[in-house]
């Protein structure tokens, strides 16, 4: 019988902080297999995050809105800078790009259903646009990725916005991968690849290299689509201040910044955990870049990477984002890691709440799989409804906080509404440590 934690404590067994059990298991796995660990999900390490911020609700010096009666607006308009038809969304919570291939067709359909029910957008991902997704999505953002899998002008014209992806928070500087288990006949056909191979996406676009080229690429995409559609530029959070400035110079209508807690369907663990910066550290950099260019609010900022609840939504917006995107949280809302599949997760060597082997295509919940039998377990109508519920909760929670801060619209939230409970978060978010006026690194006019 295995020792319990109490047994270990009684026996004086002390776990190494440096070589903890997960680290030991990783070394043992590497020695056995000779290849790096590939997994889904996002960074699992503890990072300064939205939980390290608190709102200063109104009292004497500020006047709150009536919590249940006074209107607190949630709609946002994205792509106003150049596009003939900007997106008008009813909630600032959007669905991040997740590919058909990484997810089943039914899961993609559910994302479209849920997003459309609450009037927000969903996003294609690497691998092209499926009819199910287009058909169920009122607002569909079509990703333009280095691989260009499934990219074609007909779908480009069907999209409501185009998102040029330079990187994602889980792997800035890296391309996607989709292992052979998930390259079904349909996925292979859409990507023009042999069925069953391990697909490794490129990390650089094939026909442009730097920001000056990107400006020309954006013009090409606008010309092809007759300047109708908003063009987003998505970057993984690293040198965010500079990347956002360059994206704006290149002509982006919307900039998407994805922090390192952002999810992935399959990436090397070393990449997920060790490349990029936390979402919290990226937002103020992006906002500073936009403000210095005089483009804050004219070029909209979407933030993603670890958004889990309405407080996170409100905090991201208070720091200056116009909208947020959710990926991992949306999958959980659909039914990912549901305890009802506990026995099956354990049979795969994982557990409900820990399952991250999206790359294997054996998802018991039928979401991150191309196996027809597993995929059939997932009901896209029920899943869509669950996602819509979750999106409504996020929106209502954000409104609750905003009203308490006296704001009649989520976009009225501001950094002044926030304080930090850790020095790290105060420095990254550039808001004062609670009870002080101290913003580490910034009270003396910190600059890049």
């Amino acid at each position, binding site marked *: 019988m295995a020792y319990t934690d109490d047994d270990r404590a009684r026996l004086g067994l002390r776990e190494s902080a440096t070589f903890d059990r997960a680290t030991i298991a990783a070394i043992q796995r590497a020695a056995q297999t000779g*290849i790096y660990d590939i997994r889904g999900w996002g960074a699992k390490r503890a990072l300064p995050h939205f939980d390290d911020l608190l709102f200063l609700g109104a009292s004497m010096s500020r006047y709150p809105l009536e919590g249940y009666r006074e209107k607190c607006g949630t709609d946002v308009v994205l792509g106003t800078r150049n596009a003939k038809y900007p997106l008008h969304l009813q909630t600032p919570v959007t669905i991040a790009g997740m590919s058909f291939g990484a997810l089943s067709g039914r899961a993609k359909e559910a994302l479209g259903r849920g997003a459309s029910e609450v009037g927000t957008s969903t996003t294609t991902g690497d691998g092209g646009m499926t009819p199910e997704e287009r058909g169920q999505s009122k607002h569909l953002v079509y990703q333009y990725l280095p691989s260009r899998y499934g990219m074609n002008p007909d779908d480009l014209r069907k999209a409501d916005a185009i998102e040029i992806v330079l990187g994602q928070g889980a792997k800035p500087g890296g391309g996607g991968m989709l292992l052979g288990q998930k390259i079904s006949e349909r996925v292979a056909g859409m990507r023009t690849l042999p069925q069953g191979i*391990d697909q490794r996406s490129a990390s650089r676009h094939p*026909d442009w290299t730097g920001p000056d080229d990107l400006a*020309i690429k954006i013009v090409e995409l606008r010309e092809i689509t*007759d300047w109708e559609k908003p063009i987003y530029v998505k970057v993984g959070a690293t040198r965010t201040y500079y990347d956002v400035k360059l994206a704006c110079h290149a002509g982006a209508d919307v900039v998407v910044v994805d922090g390192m807690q952002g999810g992935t369907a399959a990436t090397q663990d070393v990449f997920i955990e060790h490349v990029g910066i936390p979402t919290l550290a990226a937002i103020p950099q992006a906002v500073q870049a936009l403000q210095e260019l005089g483009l804050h609010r004219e070029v909209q900022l979407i933030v993603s990477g670890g958004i889990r609840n309405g407080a996170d939504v409100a905090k991201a917006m208070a720091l200056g984002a116009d909208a947020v995107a959710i990926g991992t949280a949306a999958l959980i809302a659909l039914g990912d890691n549901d305890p009802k599949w506990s026995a099956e997760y354990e049979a795969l060597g994982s557990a409900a709440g820990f399952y991250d082997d999206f790359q294997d295509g054996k998802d018991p919940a039928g979401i991150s799989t191309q196996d027809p039998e597993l995929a059939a377990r997932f009901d896209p109508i029920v899943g869509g409804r669950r996602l819509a519920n979750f999106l409504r909760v996020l929106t209502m929670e954000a409104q609750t906080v905003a009203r308490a801060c006296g704001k009649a619209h989520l976009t009225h939230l501001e950094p002044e509404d926030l304080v930090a409970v850790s020095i790290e978060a105060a420095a990254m978010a550039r808001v004062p440590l609670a009870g002080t006026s101290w913003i580490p690194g910034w009270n003396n006019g910190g600059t890049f």
Partner: protein
Amino acid sequence: MSTDVSTDVSADVADVTADVADVTADVAEVTAEATRYCLSQTPLREVNQALHAAGLEGEFIIDQPFGAHAVAVGVNAPVKITVNGHVGYYAAGMNQQAEIIIVGNAGTGVAENMMSGTVVVKGNASQSAGATAHGGLLVIEGDAAARCGISMKGVDIVVGGNIGHNSAFMAQAGRLVVRGGAGDGLGDSIYEARLYIRGAAASLGADCVAKEMRPEHHEELAGLLKSAGFEDDDPASYTRYGSARQLYHFHVDNTSAY
């Protein structure tokens, strides 16, 4: 993996580009019914918008492009478009159905992501010609720079001269014919595209190997050469390259190639 390659690519093909040195001196043959645009007078937006009109047919001439980017992009009609002069980036990008002739040189990404139709460049093309294109025929009568046919997904590309380094990188499907030679790293991480090269390849990329020219390949190559106007070439003088398919799955013994 084949390493039977030469570093002297240009010597084999020194003469092939001579006839395209002054391509803009050619005068396009124009029918009386052609609609004519002068890009020095009409904004590009207006020209491209006109070329996107529903039910478009006929012939169009674009004069004085002076290196403009995104000329004749997103066309989806069975029309003939002649561009008299040099063009910048992404000319004829995402073409569907149209026959587009560029009487000059083309910048980066000519005919990128083309789906169908034909694009002919009478001069040379810069890097990433035909990148990610899914279908149609791209003919470059002169040379093409680096990354020609990168991530090609079904297009046929015929190059009269040489191609630069890293061409056909991750090429997924389609055929690339080169009457001259290829620079370093030809076909790196190639999938199922077939490459026919008459001259030498400076070096081959990971998992790209020379393959036997079987009768079906002679026949296929002869057809491609004919469609591009090079029917006098002897297919037997070409070498076929493709994927060794050794890197299609992750394997610990292949880590040096990743």
